[in-house]
């Protein structure tokens, strides 16, 4: 363990607006920059979602064109997964929290950190610009399966839009890799005195494992994207077999297979789910501990479960390909290991619930979202069984059951993690509180629209409604399922309205929120031992040491019922 004393002394706060807020190397500023970037991208992605819902509720009006519709679903997924949730949750909160939690003055590589942010900015610009080019934005699904994504003739969005999509993804991966390296190095090497691995707050464990998973799996997507670029622009045939016919004309490609891309994509794609979900769970643990005044139930168990999830997540990607024509024995293998993931997840879920046991719960907005997150993990996790079991996936594959399912896992769990984290750490970010009343309105508008909305999609999947379908009335068998579309669209509008409340609260509170002191929630971890907002270098005095577990709640009873992690043992 190396102390971060190297930063001590000559680390002065930079002067000048540009160095302080724009090209900053301060992990807290960078974290907030990521967060605000994600907010902008979320606005775009939400508008796309609303357009999708309008089309589905009133398909006879043909509000958008079919080729626009496939661009909408493609870009909504891409933006939400990579440019909203990844940026806000992993890059945003990860950057802001890790040094404060482990007791470091900054990330291990502050300049690399700044670079990682300034690499993602052009990525965002390219993604947004792709809406404006000829043919429109990418339209091969967020999974970008070739040949659709490889051939301009296959779909209008597969022109310049798809190329920009690939370049933007390359920038995203580069940025995410720099961030991941920083996280792992900082957590492993820059912990303060006494901060042993088993004294790390659980959220730091989740960031560590998330970063390791990202570093191990993203190279597969990098390779996949490069090969796809070559197929598109250099005439290679990595993904393209012989005999493709478009408009009575046979293409000269030969020797490749689209299945190669699917394997490479999901080798990343599946771990990516845990890259995003784990930090949200980590935030859940932190917030529930502080608002139930109890240490999270089963710290060790949770850490081991996270490790088991990490290992399993790397060997289950094939469950996205059960119906791709893979060897049936392979299908069986992927089924057996996939459903095992519910085991460590159920341990984590039960630990979260058990953390409330004999607590003294306070239902502030942060806690409300953390508890909503627990429910969403349950729904998302259990829904996974239907899709992880090959025999039932045969029916559910590419149906709205899948759409409902992943909107609970990488949608709701992650967003609720972001919201819980925002209400909880906002005082440390800006020295002010978010408005509690608006926070509650936001919560209730969100849960009463979001849960029914995505649950109804599960019924639609059961009724056989297929995803990425511009006009479901083409079929008769799905009549009952598609009958829910109007309700779902109205719920989606409600959900959107609820998020406006959050945005108003967020920006108003930045400037007009009630000022807070060091430790407004009477929490125990190290970030609460410095002033709010935390200054450059995180602590004006010496960096605190860790003398005990991160969650000593319920210590003495009464008002001061907690002991800071930095408090020396008597």
């Amino acid at each position, binding site marked *: 363990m190396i102390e971060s004393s190297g930063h001590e002394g000559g680390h002065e706060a930079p002067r000048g607006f540009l160095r302080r807020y724009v090209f900053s190397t301060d992990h807290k500023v960078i974290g907030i920059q990521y967060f605000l970037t994600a907010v902008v991208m979320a606005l775009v992605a939400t508008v796309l979602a609303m357009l999708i819902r309008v089309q589905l509720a009133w398909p006879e009006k043909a509000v958008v064109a079919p080729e626009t519709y496939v661009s909408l679903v493609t870009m909504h997924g891409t933006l939400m997964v990579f440019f909203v949730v990844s940026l806000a949750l992993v890059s945003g909160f990860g950057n802001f929290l890790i040094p404060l939690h482990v007791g470091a003055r900054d990330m291990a590589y502050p300049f690399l950190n700044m670079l990682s942010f300034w690499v993602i900015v052009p990525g965002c610009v390219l993604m947004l610009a792709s809406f404006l080019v000829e043919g429109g934005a990418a339209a091969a699904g967020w999974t970008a399966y070739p040949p659709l994504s490889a051939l301009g003739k296959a779909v209008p969005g597969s022109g310049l839009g798809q190329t920009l999509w690939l370049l933007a993804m390359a920038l995203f991966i580069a940025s995410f890799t720099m961030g991941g390296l920083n996280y792992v190095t900082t957590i492993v090497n820059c912990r303060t005195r006494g901060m042993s691995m088993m004294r790390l707050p659980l959220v730091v464990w989740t960031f560590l494992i998330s970063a390791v998973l990202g570093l191990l799996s993203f190279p597969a997507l990098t390779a996949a994207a490069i090969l796809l670029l070559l197929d598109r622009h250099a005439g290679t045939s990595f993904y393209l077999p012989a005999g493709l016919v478009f408009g009575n004309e046979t293409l000269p490609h030969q020797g490749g297979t689209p299945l190669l891309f699917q394997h490479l994509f999901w080798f990343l794609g599946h771990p990516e789910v845990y890259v995003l979900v784990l930090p949200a769970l980590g935030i859940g643990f932190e917030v529930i501990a502080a608002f139930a005044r109890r240490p999270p139930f089963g710290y060790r168990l949770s850490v081991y479960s996270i490790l088991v999830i990490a290992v399993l997540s790397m060997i289950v990607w094939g469950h996205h390909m059960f119906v791709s024509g893979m060897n049936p024995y392979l299908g069986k293998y992927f089924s057996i290991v996939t459903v095992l993931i519910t085991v460590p997840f159920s341990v984590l879920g039960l630990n979260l619930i058990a953390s409330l046991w004999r607590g003294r719960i306070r239902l502030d907005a942060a806690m409300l979202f953390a508890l909503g997150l627990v429910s969403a993990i349950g729904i998302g996790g259990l829904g996974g*069984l239907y899709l992880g*079991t090959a025999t*039932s996936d045969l029916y559910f594959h*590419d149906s709205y059951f899948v759409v409902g399912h992943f909107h609970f896992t990488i949608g709701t769990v992650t967003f609720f993690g972001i919201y819980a984290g925002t209400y909880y750490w906002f005082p440390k970010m800006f020295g002010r509180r978010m408005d509690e009343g608006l926070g509650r309105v936001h919560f209730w508008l969100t849960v009463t629209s979001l849960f029914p909305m995505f649950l109804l999609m599960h019924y639609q999947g059961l009724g056989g409604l297929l995803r990425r379908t511009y006009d*479901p009335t083409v079929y008769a068998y799905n009549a009952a399922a598609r009958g829910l579309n109007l309700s779902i669209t109205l719920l989606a509008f409600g959900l959107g309205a609820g998020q406006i409340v959050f945005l108003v609260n967020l920006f108003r509170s930045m400037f007009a929120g009630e000022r807070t002191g060091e430790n407004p929630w009477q929490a125990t971890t190290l970030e609460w031992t410095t002033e709010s907002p935390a200054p450059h270098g995180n602590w004006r005095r010496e960096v605190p040491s860790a003398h005990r577990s991160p969650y000593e709640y319920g210590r003495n009873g*009464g008002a001061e*019922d907690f002991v800071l992690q930095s408090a020396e043992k008597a």
Partner: protein
Amino acid sequence: METARPPASASALAAFFVVLAALTALGFAAISWLPVVASEHGPGVDRTIVYILVVTGVLFLVGHAVLAGFVWRYSRGGTPEYRPLSPKVEWSWALLPVLALTVASEVGVLVIGGPAWSQIYGETPAGALEIEVVGKQFEWLVRYPGKDGRFGRTAAELVHDVRNPVGLDKKDPAASDDVVLRGALHLPEGRPVVVRLRSLDVLHSFAIPELRVKQDIVPGHLGRTQFRPVRAGSYELACAELCGLGHYRMSGKVVVEPAPEFERWLREQAGWFE
């Protein structure tokens, strides 16, 4: 410290979890969302789905009841104590979910789902009818081998939208009587069917919800799927894999009819080059 009643917000949240769980379970149980099942292996697929519905339903209801109960009970104040668990206690607690979930999930995969999976991907039963389905943007083409019972040679270079949609090679004697149809599939009731799957351009997926059939079609690979339709009727064929702007309208018809009627129908079909 402890009060008799929790604050309204706790009651509201607890009530929300209970109502949500109850209504969700009711929605699954009260309405039969699944379309009718018309294939031999279909009930096996449905059995797997129902098994998981029951198992996850119980876990979902119990989990939410406990969550709601805790929220309600422990919002009344009180003085929590700091009592970390010993590793031994932790491990014994974990044993319950580990055993329960391992057994519940693997029973679904191996015991309930396994036989149906093997049926779908197992040996082809004797006397199966072999047909070919070709996917292209945004149309289904169906080929029967004709009177000689053999599929003639095809080549991509010969494909023409109108004149030769699957690219039959005229020079191959086996090709002349091959029957090629657009968008409609006739199948005999009760006889096993093997479908050869080909794509001319991008990924498609051969899906017949009522038959519980879904199989991706990967260009460059000759795919296959097999099933036995057991219920006469007219069903819909859908493309289940995004294949472009017209993906949504890439539908087809599947007519399952008694074997004699099917045979009669097949005899009436002329070969593509006849």
